[in-house]
Protein backbone atom coordinates (compact mmCIF):
# COMPACT_ATOMS: atom_id res chain seq x y z
CA UNK A 1 0.00 0.00 0.00
CA UNK A 2 2.71 2.46 0.99
CA UNK A 3 4.80 1.42 -1.99
CA UNK A 4 1.85 2.10 -4.27
CA UNK A 5 1.30 5.62 -2.97
CA UNK A 6 4.99 6.48 -3.09
CA UNK A 7 5.07 5.32 -6.67
CA UNK A 8 2.21 7.66 -7.51
CA UNK A 9 3.92 10.54 -5.73
CA UNK A 10 7.09 9.95 -7.73
CA UNK A 11 5.08 9.84 -10.93
CA UNK A 12 3.29 13.10 -10.15
CA UNK A 13 6.58 14.75 -9.20
CA UNK A 14 8.13 13.58 -12.44
CA UNK A 15 5.30 14.99 -14.51
CA UNK A 16 5.28 18.30 -12.70
CA UNK A 17 9.04 18.61 -13.02
CA UNK A 18 9.04 17.70 -16.70
CA UNK A 19 8.85 21.27 -18.01
CA UNK A 20 11.85 22.16 -15.84
CA UNK A 21 13.75 19.02 -16.75
CA UNK A 22 13.03 19.35 -20.45
CA UNK A 23 15.86 21.78 -21.31
CA UNK A 24 18.34 19.68 -19.37
CA UNK A 25 17.11 16.51 -21.01
CA UNK A 26 17.21 18.11 -24.44
CA UNK A 27 20.70 19.40 -23.77
CA UNK A 28 21.99 16.04 -22.62
CA UNK A 29 20.36 14.05 -25.41
CA UNK A 30 21.47 16.64 -27.94
CA UNK A 31 25.07 16.42 -26.79
CA UNK A 32 25.01 12.64 -26.93
CA UNK A 33 23.25 12.47 -30.30
CA UNK A 34 25.52 15.04 -31.93
CA UNK A 35 28.56 13.29 -30.54
CA UNK A 36 27.40 10.12 -32.25
CA UNK A 37 26.81 11.97 -35.51
CA UNK A 38 30.29 13.42 -35.29
CA UNK A 39 31.83 9.99 -34.70
CA UNK A 40 30.01 8.62 -37.73
CA UNK A 41 31.23 11.55 -39.80
CA UNK A 42 34.84 11.09 -38.74
CA UNK A 43 34.62 7.42 -39.64
CA UNK A 44 33.06 8.26 -43.00
CA UNK A 45 35.75 10.84 -43.68
CA UNK A 46 38.44 8.28 -42.98
CA UNK A 47 36.88 5.76 -45.34
CA UNK A 48 36.08 7.91 -48.36
CA UNK A 49 36.92 11.45 -47.45
CA UNK A 50 39.89 11.98 -49.70
CA UNK A 51 38.87 15.09 -51.59
CA UNK A 52 38.97 14.80 -55.32
CA UNK A 53 41.81 16.93 -56.52
CA UNK A 54 45.03 16.82 -58.44
CA UNK A 55 48.03 19.04 -58.99
CA UNK A 56 46.67 20.93 -61.97
CA UNK A 57 43.27 21.77 -60.57
CA UNK A 58 43.24 24.00 -57.54
CA UNK A 59 40.27 23.33 -55.36
CA UNK A 60 39.19 26.85 -54.53
CA UNK A 61 40.74 28.81 -57.38
CA UNK A 62 38.19 30.38 -59.68
CA UNK A 63 40.32 30.19 -62.80
CA UNK A 64 42.08 27.13 -64.05
CA UNK A 65 45.65 27.26 -65.22
CA UNK A 66 45.57 24.15 -67.33
CA UNK A 67 42.46 22.99 -69.06
CA UNK A 68 42.65 19.29 -69.54
CA UNK A 69 38.98 18.50 -69.24
CA UNK A 70 36.65 16.39 -71.31
CA UNK A 71 33.48 17.77 -69.74
CA UNK A 72 32.25 19.40 -66.59
CA UNK A 73 29.17 19.68 -64.46
CA UNK A 74 27.82 21.88 -61.71
CA UNK A 75 27.63 20.23 -58.31
CA UNK A 76 25.66 21.58 -55.41
CA UNK A 77 24.69 20.13 -52.10
CA UNK A 78 23.04 21.66 -49.07
CA UNK A 79 22.45 20.55 -45.52
CA UNK A 80 20.41 22.01 -42.70
CA UNK A 81 21.64 21.59 -39.16
CA UNK A 82 20.67 23.04 -35.83
CA UNK A 83 21.44 22.63 -32.15
CA UNK A 84 18.82 21.17 -29.85
CA UNK A 85 16.33 23.29 -27.88
CA UNK A 86 18.13 22.70 -24.62
CA UNK A 87 21.43 23.76 -26.13
CA UNK A 88 19.85 26.95 -27.46
CA UNK A 89 18.45 27.61 -23.99
CA UNK A 90 21.82 27.21 -22.31
CA UNK A 91 23.60 29.12 -25.03
CA UNK A 92 21.45 32.10 -24.17
CA UNK A 93 22.82 31.82 -20.64
CA UNK A 94 26.35 31.45 -21.87
CA UNK A 95 26.09 34.41 -24.20
CA UNK A 96 25.55 36.69 -21.22
CA UNK A 97 29.18 36.10 -20.30
CA UNK A 98 30.51 35.61 -23.79
CA UNK A 99 33.17 33.11 -24.66
CA UNK A 100 33.18 29.97 -26.69
CA UNK A 101 29.81 28.43 -27.50
CA UNK A 102 30.74 24.78 -27.64
CA UNK A 103 27.36 23.51 -28.80
CA UNK A 104 27.31 25.74 -31.83
CA UNK A 105 30.94 24.92 -32.53
CA UNK A 106 30.18 21.24 -32.81
CA UNK A 107 27.00 21.63 -34.85
CA UNK A 108 28.48 24.05 -37.37
CA UNK A 109 31.66 22.03 -37.73
CA UNK A 110 29.58 18.92 -38.33
CA UNK A 111 27.37 20.62 -40.92
CA UNK A 112 30.23 22.03 -42.94
CA UNK A 113 32.24 18.83 -43.03
CA UNK A 114 29.18 16.77 -43.86
CA UNK A 115 28.31 19.14 -46.73
CA UNK A 116 31.81 18.82 -48.16
CA UNK A 117 31.69 15.06 -47.83
CA UNK A 118 28.37 14.89 -49.66
CA UNK A 119 29.70 17.19 -52.37
CA UNK A 120 32.61 14.82 -52.78
CA UNK A 121 30.24 11.87 -52.97
CA UNK A 122 28.09 13.62 -55.57
CA UNK A 123 31.19 14.32 -57.66
CA UNK A 124 32.14 10.66 -57.50
CA UNK A 125 28.62 9.57 -58.45
CA UNK A 126 28.66 11.82 -61.51
CA UNK A 127 32.03 10.45 -62.60
CA UNK A 128 34.13 13.53 -61.88
CA UNK A 129 37.80 13.21 -61.20
CA UNK A 130 38.36 16.59 -59.59
CA UNK A 131 36.59 19.71 -58.44
CA UNK A 132 37.42 23.37 -58.91
CA UNK A 133 36.09 26.55 -57.38
CA UNK A 134 34.59 25.02 -54.27
CA UNK A 135 32.46 27.55 -52.41
CA UNK A 136 30.70 27.17 -49.09
CA UNK A 137 27.89 29.50 -48.13
CA UNK A 138 26.20 29.78 -44.78
CA UNK A 139 22.77 31.15 -44.15
CA UNK A 140 20.21 31.10 -41.38
CA UNK A 141 17.01 29.35 -42.28
CA UNK A 142 13.97 29.73 -40.13
CA UNK A 143 10.63 28.33 -41.17
CA UNK A 144 9.10 29.16 -37.80
CA UNK A 145 5.70 30.72 -38.22
CA UNK A 146 6.01 32.95 -35.17
CA UNK A 147 8.85 34.40 -33.17
CA UNK A 148 8.03 32.42 -30.06
CA UNK A 149 9.09 29.29 -31.83
CA UNK A 150 12.86 29.29 -31.48
CA UNK A 151 13.36 26.59 -34.10
CA UNK A 152 16.23 27.94 -36.08
CA UNK A 153 18.71 26.17 -38.22
CA UNK A 154 21.76 26.90 -40.27
CA UNK A 155 22.03 25.93 -43.88
CA UNK A 156 25.33 25.07 -45.49
CA UNK A 157 25.46 25.17 -49.24
CA UNK A 158 28.53 23.80 -50.94
CA UNK A 159 28.92 24.10 -54.67
CA UNK A 160 31.67 23.44 -57.14
CA UNK A 161 32.41 22.58 -60.73
CA UNK A 162 33.23 18.96 -61.27
CA UNK A 163 35.78 18.07 -63.95
CA UNK A 164 35.73 14.85 -65.92
CA UNK A 165 38.91 13.83 -67.66
Amino acid at each position, binding site marked *: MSEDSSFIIVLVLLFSLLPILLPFL*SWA*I*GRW*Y*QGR*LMDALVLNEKQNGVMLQNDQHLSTA*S*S*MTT*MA*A*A*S*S*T*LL*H*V*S*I*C*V*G*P*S*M*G*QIFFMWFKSLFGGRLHSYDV*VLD*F*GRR*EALLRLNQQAKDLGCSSM*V*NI*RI*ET*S*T*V*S*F*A*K*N*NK*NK*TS*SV*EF*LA*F*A*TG*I*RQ
Partner: protein
Amino acid sequence: MEPTSISMYMSNVETIPGMTIAKSLGLVTGSTVRAKHIGKDIFAGFKNFVGGELKQYTDLLNESRNEALQRMMMQASSMGANGIVNVRFATSNVAAGASELFCYGTAVIVQ
Protein backbone atom coordinates in the same frame (compact mmCIF):
# COMPACT_ATOMS: atom_id res chain seq x y z
CA MET B 1 7.91 22.01 -60.84
CA GLU B 2 8.41 21.94 -64.58
CA PRO B 3 8.32 18.37 -65.79
CA THR B 4 10.73 18.90 -68.64
CA SER B 5 14.31 18.92 -67.54
CA ILE B 6 16.63 20.78 -69.83
CA SER B 7 20.20 19.65 -69.94
CA MET B 8 22.66 22.46 -70.09
CA TYR B 9 26.36 22.99 -69.54
CA MET B 10 26.76 24.71 -66.21
CA SER B 11 29.73 25.71 -64.11
CA ASN B 12 30.63 28.18 -61.43
CA VAL B 13 33.95 29.14 -63.03
CA GLU B 14 34.40 31.67 -65.83
CA THR B 15 34.41 29.03 -68.53
CA ILE B 16 32.93 25.65 -69.24
CA PRO B 17 35.97 23.41 -68.84
CA GLY B 18 36.62 21.50 -72.03
CA MET B 19 34.54 23.88 -74.15
CA THR B 20 35.02 27.29 -75.71
CA ILE B 21 32.58 30.14 -75.32
CA ALA B 22 31.37 31.49 -78.65
CA LYS B 23 29.02 34.19 -77.43
CA SER B 24 27.85 35.70 -74.18
CA LEU B 25 24.15 36.47 -73.88
CA GLY B 26 23.94 38.21 -70.53
CA LEU B 27 22.50 37.62 -67.10
CA VAL B 28 19.94 34.94 -66.34
CA THR B 29 18.24 34.47 -62.99
CA GLY B 30 15.96 32.01 -61.32
CA SER B 31 14.26 32.19 -57.97
CA THR B 32 11.65 30.50 -55.87
CA VAL B 33 10.06 31.32 -52.53
CA ARG B 34 9.08 28.39 -50.37
CA ALA B 35 7.23 28.01 -47.12
CA LYS B 36 7.17 24.95 -44.95
CA HIS B 37 4.39 22.40 -44.79
CA ILE B 38 2.99 22.68 -41.25
CA GLY B 39 3.00 18.94 -40.61
CA LYS B 40 6.64 18.66 -41.55
CA ASP B 41 7.33 21.76 -39.49
CA ILE B 42 5.96 20.07 -36.40
CA PHE B 43 8.04 17.02 -37.22
CA ALA B 44 11.13 19.19 -37.54
CA GLY B 45 10.21 20.71 -34.18
CA PHE B 46 10.42 17.25 -32.65
CA LYS B 47 13.74 16.70 -34.32
CA ASN B 48 14.87 19.97 -32.83
CA PHE B 49 14.74 18.27 -29.45
CA VAL B 50 17.98 16.48 -30.24
CA GLY B 51 19.43 18.79 -32.89
CA GLY B 52 21.70 17.60 -35.63
CA GLU B 53 20.60 17.47 -39.23
CA LEU B 54 17.04 18.56 -39.97
CA LYS B 55 16.28 16.24 -42.85
CA GLN B 56 12.95 17.85 -43.74
CA TYR B 57 14.54 21.23 -44.22
CA THR B 58 17.44 19.77 -46.17
CA ASP B 59 15.06 18.04 -48.56
CA LEU B 60 12.89 21.11 -48.96
CA LEU B 61 15.85 23.35 -49.72
CA ASN B 62 17.34 20.88 -52.19
CA GLU B 63 14.04 20.56 -54.01
CA SER B 64 13.55 24.33 -54.13
CA ARG B 65 17.07 24.98 -55.28
CA ASN B 66 16.61 22.54 -58.12
CA GLU B 67 13.47 24.40 -59.10
CA ALA B 68 15.30 27.73 -59.10
CA LEU B 69 18.03 26.19 -61.26
CA GLN B 70 15.38 24.78 -63.58
CA ARG B 71 13.82 28.23 -64.01
CA MET B 72 17.19 29.76 -64.73
CA MET B 73 17.81 27.10 -67.37
CA MET B 74 14.39 27.79 -68.93
CA GLN B 75 15.26 31.46 -69.21
CA ALA B 76 18.65 30.67 -70.70
CA SER B 77 17.24 28.26 -73.25
CA SER B 78 14.61 30.82 -74.29
CA MET B 79 17.50 33.15 -75.07
CA GLY B 80 19.04 30.47 -77.22
CA ALA B 81 21.90 29.62 -74.91
CA ASN B 82 23.23 26.16 -74.28
CA GLY B 83 25.34 26.89 -71.23
CA ILE B 84 25.50 28.99 -68.07
CA VAL B 85 28.77 30.07 -66.51
CA ASN B 86 29.57 31.69 -63.18
CA VAL B 87 26.52 30.30 -61.43
CA ARG B 88 25.99 31.76 -57.96
CA PHE B 89 23.51 30.88 -55.26
CA ALA B 90 21.92 33.09 -52.64
CA THR B 91 19.49 32.34 -49.83
CA SER B 92 17.50 34.90 -47.92
CA ASN B 93 14.71 35.02 -45.38
CA VAL B 94 12.06 37.16 -47.00
CA ALA B 95 9.33 36.65 -44.40
CA ALA B 96 8.71 34.68 -41.23
CA GLY B 97 8.25 31.11 -42.32
CA ALA B 98 9.40 31.58 -45.88
CA SER B 99 12.73 31.45 -47.59
CA GLU B 100 13.84 32.64 -50.98
CA LEU B 101 16.32 30.65 -53.00
CA PHE B 102 17.91 32.56 -55.78
CA CYS B 103 20.49 31.69 -58.40
CA TYR B 104 22.01 33.64 -61.23
CA GLY B 105 24.61 33.26 -63.91
CA THR B 106 25.73 34.31 -67.35
CA ALA B 107 24.08 32.62 -70.31
CA VAL B 108 26.53 31.65 -73.03
CA ILE B 109 26.68 29.72 -76.27
CA VAL B 110 29.45 27.15 -76.08
CA GLN B 111 31.01 24.89 -78.66
